[in-house]
């Protein structure tokens, strides 16, 4: 049975690609501003952890296709090649590659307060997975240590999602997301059976967002995950503070990240100093998450540079402390964000 899984995966991709092509064609006579787009990031990163350097070129393409006034199809994929030291006293490097869909979802905008999403979607636990995981958005090239809590192995769910703005006023807004995901062992749409959601309160005048997330794993040993996040972006400043706390049944952790863009298009204005503090606590060794197996503290100091033409350089140094090993982590990378129409539309 296992041997047929990749074949089924490829068949599913072919069916989905055909569907996308049909939908793509049907949107041809659309409005001039609604041309389907291709976006994403191309990056080359290096990470030196405790003296061992790993290189990984990555491409993350994203396709978005509006269908009329109420429907929207969107998908993102990852093509990753990893070159890491062979280890075990062997010289040279070994490499591995990964190609996979991150998500493929269709959305129907029901009304001003409700959007219905179906397909494979990013799990809405916390903020990192949905908002900061694209390679062209994240300030640091690696995610927080607790990034896997509440989003399981793949970070994606397969099922349905309801989301929207419950209340939207000048002084505050309340957003919600609720989802259910079925279990799937498909190579491209791997997902765990789970359900959960997130609620965000945003205060525009204070530029303050406070949110809470909850997820329950509904397969194997049922587990609960809960989290909170606070984002603050003071008005008239280029400073951003983002922080998140997550609790699972096997680990707890938090991260807090501050960044400041000096501002303007000058040489110095394009610098973006960063700082991130992280701490994780291991409650027991039973979890299948990727949180460190021992209590860990880490401080990241970064300096990004926003070049013209949507190119960004990311550099950082981190010191990681744990009972098993203290290590230095050096990371450097360059990312190009591309964004263009899928074809030459009327508006060009």
């Amino acid at each position, binding site marked *: 049975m296992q041997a047929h899984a990749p074949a089924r995966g490829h068949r599913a991709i072919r069916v989905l690609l055909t569907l996308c092509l049909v939908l793509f064609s049907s949107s041809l006579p659309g409005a*001039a501003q609604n041309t*389907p787009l291709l976006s994403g990031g191309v990056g080359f990163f290096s990470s030196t952890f405790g003296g061992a350097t790993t290189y990984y070129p990555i491409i993350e393409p994203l396709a978005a296709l509006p269908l009329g006034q109420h429907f929207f199809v969107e998908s993102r994929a990852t093509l990753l090649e990893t070159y890491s030291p062979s280890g075990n006293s062997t010289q040279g490097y070994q490499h591995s590659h990964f190609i996979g869909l991150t998500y493929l979802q269709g959305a129907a905008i029901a009304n001003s307060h409700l959007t219905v999403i179906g397909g494979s979607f990013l799990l809405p636990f916390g903020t990192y997975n949905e908002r900061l995981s694209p390679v062209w958005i994240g300030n640091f090239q690696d995610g927080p240590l607790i990034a896997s809590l509440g989003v399981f192995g793949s970070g994606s769910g397969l099922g349905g999602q309801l989301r929207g703005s419950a209340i939207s006023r000048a002084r505050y807004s309340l957003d919600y997301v609720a989802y259910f995901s079925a279990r799937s062992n498909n190579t491209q749409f791997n997902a765990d059976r789970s359900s959960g959601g997130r609620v965000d309160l945003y205060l525009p005048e204070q530029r303050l*967002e406070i949110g809470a997330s909850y997820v329950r794993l509904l397969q194997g040993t049922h587990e609960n995950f809960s989290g909170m996040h606070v984002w603050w972006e003071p008005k008239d400043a280029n400073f951003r503070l983002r922080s998140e706390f997550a609790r699972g049944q096997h680990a707890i952790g938090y991260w807090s990240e501050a960044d400041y863009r000096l*501002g303007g*298009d000058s*040489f110095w204005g394009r610098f973006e100093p960063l700082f991130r503090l992280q701490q994780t606590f291991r409650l027991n060794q039973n979890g299948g998450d990727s949180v460190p197996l021992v209590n860990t503290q880490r401080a990241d100091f970064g300096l990004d540079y926003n070049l013209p033409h949507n190119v960004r350089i990311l550099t950082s140094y981190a010191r990681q402390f744990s009972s098993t090993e203290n290590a230095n982590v050096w990371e450097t990378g360059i990312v190009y964000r591309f964004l263009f129409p899928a074809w*030459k539309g009327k508006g060009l």
Partner: protein
Amino acid sequence: MITKSSLAGFLLLAAAAAFFGAAASGTAPTPRTSAKAATKRQAAQPSSDGERIFQQNCSRCHNAPETFPQSISGTIVRHMRMRANLSQREEQELLKYLNP
């Protein structure tokens, strides 16, 4: 301790910075862009609802792309509506802001 490969990485990035920096100094503004002005005005006082919506919802998560053709502005706004839970009115204001 910084390894030789890390140092090589830093040097490579510095060279890239110099290259793109030099390229930028000779770049002329492209007429088909619509987000260039938005990027520059991110920290300034919003002069319209659309600009306020842009500042509060788009740049909360990411830096705006420097440029993009107007033909995809509606698609970008639809994506933002779904991702940032914008209302229909906010979607229209944002579209007006990106296509003045």
